[in-house]
C-alpha cells in the first residue's frame, strides 16, 4: 500500500513539474484542483520553496481525507473541481460603476445600518480609485505600527518579507492535517492577514482587516496568522456588520493565533455574509477553522464572534491552554433566520496548570433557522486546578426553528472544576407586551429583548462595534416577528 501511494505521489509530482508554467502566464487559473494548479498558484505569488512544499503536502494529505458529514448541517455536495483557485483581481470595468447599479436591497441594508456613503461604495464593490478618507489614516497607522516593530500586512507580503516568521508559525496551531477544510485551505489559500507583535509591545490600536484599504479581495480561502510575543497585547477585528458582496459560495478560512508568555490576543469577528434568500437559496457556506494556542504561561486568548450571516456556518474558535495560568475565552452570538443553519461553538483544551476558560454562547433561532452549539471542554491529566465555566442559552422565535446544544466535557484530573449550564426558551410574550405597552413597536420590542439576551457577549466588543452589532441583530431579525 505505502509503496503504491508513493508511486502515485511521484507521478503527480512529475506531472506538475512539466505542466504548470503555462498556467502561470494566464490571468486566471482554470477551474479544478491538482498539483499543477497549486504549483502555478505558488509561482504566481512568487512564494519561497518552503511554501510550495507545504501547500503540496497539505494537498496530498487532503486527497486522503473524506468530506465531513455533520448531523445537524445539510447542504448539497460541493464540487471542488469546479472552483477557480486563482484569479486576478477583477478589473475596474467588470464592477458596478456606481451605487445605481447595485442591488437596491443591499443598499437598503446599508441605510439601516447607517454605513457612511463612501464606505457603501467600497463594500458593494463599486469601482472607485481612491477609496475613502482612511487611506491617509491607514498610512498614518502603518507608520505608527512600524515604529513599535509591529508587523501588520497581507499574508502574501509576509511570505515575501518575513519568511522566517511565517515558516516558524504557519501550521503550528492548525496543522495542514487538521481537518478536511483546513487541509484544503493550506493547499490553496490565496491571501489573508499577518500580524506579529514583538516582545513587550502593546499594540496601541485595534487592528482590522477593515483598515487594509484596497487590499484585493482575499477570496474564499483566507489565511490569518497572529503572533503575540512575550508580554505583547493585540486586539484584532475581523469582518464588518455590512453585508459584503461576494460571488464565492464556499468559504474555508483558517485563523491561527499564537500567544507567548504573558501575551494577550483578543480576536473579534462580525460575520454577516449573504445568508441566502427567504427560501435559503444562494447563501454562503462558511466552514472556518479558528484556533489559538496559549504557548506560554499566563497567556490569554479571547474569541468574540457575532454570527448573523451565511447560509451555513460551521466554526469552533478554540483555545489550547498549554501555558500554566493561561486563559481562554469564547463569547458568541449566533443568529439564524429563514433557512440559515449554524453549527458553532468552541473547544477549550486545558493542558497547563491552573488554566481557566469561560464560554458564553447565545443562540437565536427564528424562521426555519437551525442553531446548534457544539463545544468541547477537555481537561488533560496534567492540568491541575483547571477551571471552566460555560453558559449556553438559546432563544427560539417561531415554531419552525430549532436550537440544539451539544457540549462535550472530558475531565482527566480530579482538581478540575467544570461547570456547564444551558437553557432554551421561547422569547417571552410578557417581556414583549411590557415593552409594547411602553410604546415600542413589535419589531423594536423583539430587537430590544434579543439584544438584552446578547448583552454579555456585546460587552466584550469595542464600543462602536457593539453598537453596530446591536443594529445588525435588529436588521437580521426582520421578518422574524409576525
Amino acid at each position: 500500500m505505502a509503496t503504491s501511494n508513493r508511486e502515485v505521489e511521484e507521478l503527480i509530482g512529475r506531472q506538475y513539474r512539466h505542466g504548470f508554467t503555462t498556467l502561470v502566464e494566464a490571468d486566471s487559473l482554470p477551474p479544478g484542483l491538482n498539483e499543477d494548479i497549486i504549483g502555478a498558484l505558488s509561482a504566481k505569488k512568487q512564494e519561497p520553496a518552503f511554501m510550495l512544499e507545504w501547500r503540496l503536502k497539505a494537498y496530498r494529505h487532503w486527497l486522503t481525507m473524506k468530506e465531513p458529514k455533520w448531523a445537524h448541517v445539510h447542504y448539497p455536495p460541493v464540487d471542488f473541481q469546479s472552483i477557480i483557485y486563482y484569479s486576478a483581481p477583477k478589473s475596474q470595468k467588470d464592477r458596478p460603476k456606481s451605487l445605481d447599479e447595485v442591488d437596491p436591497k443591499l443598499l437598503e441594508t446599508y441605510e439601516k445600518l447607517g454605513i457612511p456613503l463612501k464606505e457603501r461604495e467600497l463594500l458593494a464593490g463599486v469601482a472607485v480609485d481612491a477609496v475613502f478618507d482612511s487611506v491617509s489614516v491607514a498610512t498614518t497607522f502603518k507608520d505608527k505600527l512600524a515604529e513599535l516593530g509591529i508587523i501588520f500586512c497581507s499574508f502574501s507580503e509576509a511570505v515575501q518579507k518575513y519568511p522566517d516568521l511565517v515558516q516558524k508559525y504557519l501550521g503550528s496551531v492548525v496543522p495542514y492535517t487538521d481537518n478536511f477544510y483546513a487541509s484544503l485551505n493550506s493547499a490553496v489559500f490565496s491571501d489573508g492577514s499577518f500580524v506579529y507583535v514583538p516582545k513587550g509591545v502593546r499594540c496601541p490600536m485595534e487592528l482590522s482587516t477593515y483598515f487594509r484599504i484596497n487590499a484585493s479581495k482575499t477570496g474564499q480561502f483566507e489565511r490569518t496568522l497572529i503572533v503575540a510575543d512575550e508580554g505583547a497585547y493585540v486586539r484584532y477585528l475581523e469582518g464588518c456588520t455590512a453585508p459584503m458582496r461576494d460571488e464565492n459560495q464556499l468559504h474555508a478560512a483558517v485563523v491561527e493565533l499564537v500567544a507567548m508568555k504573558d501575551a494577550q490576543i483578543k480576536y473579534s469577528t462580525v460575520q454577516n455574509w449573504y445568508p441566502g434568500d427567504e427560501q435559503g437559496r444562494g447563501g454562503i457556506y462558511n466552514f472556518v477553522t479558528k484556533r489559538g494556542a496559549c504557548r506560554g504561561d499566563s497567556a490569554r486568548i479571547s474569541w468574540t464572534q457575532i454570527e448573523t450571516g451565511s447560509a451555513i456556518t460551521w466554526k469552533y474558535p478554540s483555545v489550547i491552554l498549554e501555558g500554566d495560568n493561561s486563559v481562554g475565552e469564547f463569547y458568541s452570538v449566533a443568529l439564524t433566520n429563514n433557512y440559515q443553519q449554524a453549527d458553532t461553538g468552541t473547544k477549550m483544551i486545558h493542558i497547563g496548570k491552573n488554566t481557566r476558560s469561560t464560554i458564553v454562547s447565545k443562540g437565536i433561532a427564528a424562521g426555519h433557522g437551525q442553531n446548534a452549539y457544539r463545544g468541547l471542554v477537555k481537561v488533560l491529566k496534567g492540568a491541575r486546578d483547571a477551571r471552566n465555566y460555560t453558559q449556553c442559552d438559546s432563544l427560539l422565535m417561531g415554531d419552525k426553528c430549532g436550537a440544539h446544544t451539544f457540549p462535550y466535557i472530558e475531565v482527566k484530573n480530579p482538581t478540575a472544576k467544570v461547570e456547564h449550564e444551558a437553557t432554551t426558551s421561547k422569547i417571552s410574550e410578557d417581556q414583549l407586551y411590557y415593552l409594547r405597552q411602553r410604546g415600542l413597536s413589535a419589531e423594536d420590542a423583539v430587537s430590544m429583548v434579543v439584544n438584552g439576551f446578547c448583552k454579555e457577549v456585546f460587552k466584550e466588543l469595542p464600543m462602536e462595534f457593539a453598537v453596530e452589532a446591536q443594529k445588525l441583530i435588529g436588521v437580521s431579525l426582520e421578518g422574524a416577528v409576525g
Partner: protein
Amino acid sequence: MLSIKNLHVSVEGKSILKGINLEVKAGEVHAIMGPNGSGKSTLVHVLAGREGYDVTAGAVTYLGKDLLALRAEERAREGIFLGFQYPVEIPGVSNIYLLKAALNAIRKHRGEEELDAIDFLARVREKLKLVEMKEDFMYRSVNEGFSGGERKRNEILQMAVLEPRLALLDETDSGLDIDALKIVANGVNALRTPERAVVLVTHYQRLLNYIVPDYVHVLVQGRIVKSGDKSLAHELERRGYGWVEAEARA
C-alpha cells in the same frame, strides 16, 4: 376621555367581564375595587391591548377613537400607560435605555422632536427625585433583581417620565410598605392635572387614603355592581365585599 360600553370579555372560552359600563373624564381619578377574581386585572389588560382576551361584545372609545382597534404599542403612544401588577424582568436591557426608546417612540408618534441625551437625562433626574430613587438604578436591567417595592416605584418613574393621558394602575399598592406606598402615591398625585385621568385598580382601601379618588366602583363577577364616591371605599373597608355581592344578587 374613556368610554366603556357593555364590554364583554372572555379568556379561553370562559366569560370574565360581563357588561362593563364606565365613563372616565379628563381630570378624574377612578378607583376600581373588588374581590379577587372579579375581573379587575382583565379590565386593565383589555384596555392596554394584551393579546389572549376575546372581546365578545361592547365597545371602548378613547379620545374619540375605537380603542379596541389599536395595537398595544399604539395605545401606549396615544397616551395610555399601564402600571403592571407584576412588572416583568428583562435581562440585559437597562432601565434608561428602555425609557429613552419608549419616550422617543411616543414623541415621534406625536410629531415631536426626539429628546437629545442631555434633555432626556435632565428629565429623568427630576423624576427620579419624585420616586426617591438613585440614579444608578437607571443603569440596572429592567426590574432584574428588583424588590417588589423597587419594581412598583420603577413603574411610577416610567409613568412620570412618559407623562400619559390615561394611567391604568393595576394593584400598584400590593406588596408595598407604608413608606413605599407614600412615595408611589406622591408620584401618582403629581401626575394629576385637568388633562389627565387615572384608573386605579386595588383590592384594599389603604391606597385611597393617599390618592383620593373622585369615583369608586365595585367590580363583582365581571360587573360593576356599585358606584359611589370615596366614602364607598371606606364602607367596603369596614364591611368587606360580602354585602355588595349580596346586594348585587338581590
